């Protein structure tokens, strides 16, 4: 158990609540200092990146985590709510319990990175900046908290409070149909979290900590089969209830991923959200769904994961192919990227459904890669939209000569998205398919979903053609090339994409021990 403290407060608390500190600073900034608001916000998110880098330097990849407390790193454990027992109502104990392992650490890195990039992208926001950045930083807290929380109740709190800023960020600073998109996003996720809440309460009352004999929200303890007595509501004997609970959790998380058929909120939310929020949404928020599955569904209900791996793989395949087909039909650049996200999140789910080390490694790596690549793609959509005030793909053509730097940036991102060898997504997609082929139950499904790669290449290449080749319409003669601020928000991510494409082991090493433990745990191998 590695601990790391700054000023007596654990580094994960810093990571989670530094944005709240930023919020307070922003709220008390005088009117005269309003033009510095964005720099303060960027400063606070930059601190997150610095802290993430510090964590990366201390992180010990040989520790597994998952179902052993000693394997977790940067652990912080404090009592939050502790209500002594009454005869008829057991002692209620909720902990402020944070920690990371190989499953969550890549996500923590991603969150810090994308938050920073998103803050820079947000410079194009001109209206009511203070409100915007306050909400933005609040959102970062919610995301970070959800990735590092190891107490189910705490996780749920972070998971829910994330919705509030997102609603306002889409609803106030969004596009034309922003009100519709915002409420749709909120209602879908709230609906999903109702299911998560049910399972959370059910698990709590089924559990009995083998050491203390109390009910518990502690995820690590809940993974221990001894914690849930066989005859309790979600005990091993009540197979049906356990499967129902797994499905409920799956629905809750699948809405966030978003998995077919719960995906319809995503195109709306993406199209209406401001650029930076699309970046956050695709870059981090979607991963919360798949992360939740790995951390909670797969680990606490391994039986459910084994039982449902084929249906989940089928849903994943639908995501891959249906998402790609939808993307192909889009004329709106942003909507196209949104549907491509659905397709790419399908790979993640496929890797997770394979229940193999290589598949889940690929899935987590794909989560990270998709985060970095779509961040660049959405920023690029913002670049062209800020200049041309349209996203219609058919309105453009011949931009390659007009905007050469923009062309270069977008080409790298596009090829990464296709999964070209040498770029990071190639590795992760390959791993996902290797995992899928290795598991004989879902092999057919995995083979079918390879079709997605071709479709993926098709719509991306067609997009490149529509944007950059052909003749430049007269009206775009005034377009200027990508500016330095936009380069700052894209090039570092592309460097990461290329670097991880060449040296994927940097990232894979971080997670592989944990994933191995998780897979062994799911299959009951110790």
């Amino acid at each position, binding site marked *: 158990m590695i601990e790391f403290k700054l000023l007596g407060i654990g580094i994960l608390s810093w990571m989670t609540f530094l944005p709240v500190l930023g919020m307070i600073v922003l709220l008390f900034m005088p009117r005269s200092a309003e033009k510095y608001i964005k720099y303060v916000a960027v400063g606070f998110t930059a601190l997150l990146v610095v802290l993430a880098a510090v964590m990366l330097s201390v992180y010990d990849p040989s520790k597994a985590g998952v179902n052993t407390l000693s394997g977790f790193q940067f652990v912080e454990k404090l009592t*939050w*709510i*502790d*209500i002594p027992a*009454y*005869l*008829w*109502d057991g002692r*209620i104990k909720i902990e402020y319990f944070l920690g990371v392992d190989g499953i969550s650490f890549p996500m923590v890195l991603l969150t810090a990175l994308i938050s920073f990039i998103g803050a820079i992208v947000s410079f194009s926001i001109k209206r*009511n900046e203070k409100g915007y950045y306050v909400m933005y930083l609040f959102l970062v807290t919610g995301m970070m908290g959800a990735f590092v929380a190891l107490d189910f109740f705490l996780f*749920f*709190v972070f998971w*829910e*409070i994330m*919705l*509030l800023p997102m*609603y*306002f960020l889409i*609803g*106030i600073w969004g596009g034309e149909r*922003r*009100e519709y998109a*915002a*409420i749709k996003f*909120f*209602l879908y996720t*709230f*609906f999903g979290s*109702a*299911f998560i*809440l*049910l399972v959370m*309460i*059910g698990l*709590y*009352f089924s559990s009995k900590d083998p050491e203390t004999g109390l009910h518990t929200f502690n995820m690590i303890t809940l993974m221990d089969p001894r914690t849930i007595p066989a005859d309790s*509501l979600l005990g091993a004997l009540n197979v049906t209830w356990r499967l129902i609970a797994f499905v409920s959790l799956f629905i809750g998380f699948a809405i966030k991923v978003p998995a077919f058929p719960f995906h319809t909120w995503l195109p709306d939310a993406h199209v209406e959200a401001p650029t930076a929020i699309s970046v956050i949404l695709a870059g981090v928020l979607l991963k919360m769904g798949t992360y939740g599955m790995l951390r909670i569904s797969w680990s606490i209900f391994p039986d459910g994961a084994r039982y449902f791996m084929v249906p989940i793989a089928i849903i994943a395949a639908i995501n891959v192919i249906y998402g790609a087909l939808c993307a192909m039909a889009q004329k709106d650049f942003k909507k196209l990227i949104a549907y491509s996200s659905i397709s790419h999140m399908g790979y993640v789910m496929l890797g997770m459904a394979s229940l193999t080390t290589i598949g889940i490694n690929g899935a987590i790596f794909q989560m990270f890669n998709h985060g970095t690549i779509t961040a660049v793609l959405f920023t690029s959509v913002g670049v062209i939209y800020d200049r041309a005030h349209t996203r219609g793909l058919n309105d453009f053509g011949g931009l390659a000569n007009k905007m050469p730097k923009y062309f270069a940036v977008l080409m790298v991102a596009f090829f990464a998205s296709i999964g070209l060898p040498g770029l990071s997504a190639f590795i992760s997609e390959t791993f996902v398919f290797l995992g899928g082929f290795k598991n004989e139950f879902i092999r057919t499904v995995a083979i079918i979903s390879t079709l997605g790669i071709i479709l993926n290449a098709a719509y991306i290449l067609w997009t490149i053609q529509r944007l950059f080749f052909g003749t430049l319409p007269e009206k775009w003669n005034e377009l200027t090339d990508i500016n330095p601020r936009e380069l700052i928000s894209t090039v570092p991510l592309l460097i990461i994409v290329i670097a991880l494409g060449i040296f994927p082991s940097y990232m894979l090493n971080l997670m592989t021990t944990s994933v191995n433990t998780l897979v062994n745990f799911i299959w009951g191998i110790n």
Partner: protein
Amino acid sequence: MLEQIINSLNGFLPETALIVSMLVTIILDLIIRKKSVVVTAVGIAGLLVSMYFAYLQIGAKAILFSGMVVVDPFSVFFKMILGLSTIFVLLFTTVSKEIQDSTHKNEHVYLMIAMALGAFLMASSVNMLMMYLSLETVSLTSYVLAGYTKRVKRSSESAMKYIIYGAASSGIMIYAMSLLYGFTGTMNIYETSIFLSKVNLTGNPLIVISIIMILAGFGYKISSVPFHFWTPDVYEGAPIPVTAFLAVTSSAAGFSVLIRFITNSFLAGALVQNGNFVVIPGVNWKEIIIVLSVASMILGNFVAVWQTSVKRMLAYSSIAQGGYILLGLSVANQQGLAAMLIYLMAYLFMNLGAFYVLILIANKLDTDELIGMKGLGYKAPAVCVGMGIFMFALSGVPTTAGFVGKFYLFTALIESKLVWLAVVGLMNSVVSLFFYIKVLKYMFLMKPEDGSTQKLQFGAGAYVIMLLLAVPTMFFGIYFTPLVRIAEYSISMFGFR
């Protein structure tokens, strides 16, 4: 007899303090003869004294006036809730334009104290006659209060509707009580329970019929479906502070008497085993409560979605919130009871808060229609953020007290294996989010119609009252140990083992 009355007076201090302060405010009103904060201040002081006496009663368990009222943690809890909400409503009246501009002087102060007195008695009565009398005290004063702004047509109309509905339902209730009396030969709820445990009730429709009819009386106080028809019109017509008073104080009093009546009259001798109530066979009150609760939640939430007036929306939301609270009774165990009390505490702050912000807004805009609130978030940011907190709390988003209340209710349901009921409740909160957030949509997501960004000014006092409600709403959402401890302690009732 006399001796017992004199002895009982000791345990009757909170109510006595209310009577005294009511009389004092009447006399003060006669002396001052114009609108004055002094009268309100004296009224609040009286309520504080009364709450202090109630505080001194913590831990005591006694029966007063030959088995008419009791002192027990349960009644003390409700006295605190009722006293606190009355104080808040009195504070509201000082900022409310509706009240301040009315032709009356200070009548509302002693009317509200009188109503608090009735509510205190509702919370502690253990005799059906006493229950009926205290309920009528509350009702009669609320009829007057509902029509307080008599020049406003809809206010008078609402008072009229309220009287007719109230008279009918309390008539039904007293009839059912007489039926029960004819059957058991006693008005005391403990003796009722002893009698009912001894006789064979299977196949006897009398009990079920009288429960349903008595619920008509209590159900109309908590505005539970199908006894809710007065609620939207009265809430819409009455001045907003009175609406808040009806939605919180009056309905909390309704819950107190309902819980005590149901749990004490219809449980078998041992009452509680391992935290579960022992229901007398043949008395199916659990099922009836489930029906009422589900109907209230569904009707309240689904109808609230279509409302264009915030006041009317809050009326339907109050119906739905009452349905949530009833969920706690339907599980018939101590845990459910505790969850109800936790929810009531949260409800006090968040619902009063919502009405209070509405008062502030209506003062400035002279409307409670959603359409008038377009872009208000830019003209009155602090107040609208407050509204945001209360709306999210009412819909049960974490880190607000509303979530804690819902969490405990659903916890109680799931532990009692009533998973389907928890699912119904949760799906209802998803629906409720839609209309609660609609208020915020108008405030923040839409631009002002006239395009002006003129900031609205509110006095410092207005913000202080809002903070008094908003801070507990947030604080108890993050640290809810006190709520749970209080609730667990307060479910202990006289004669309850």
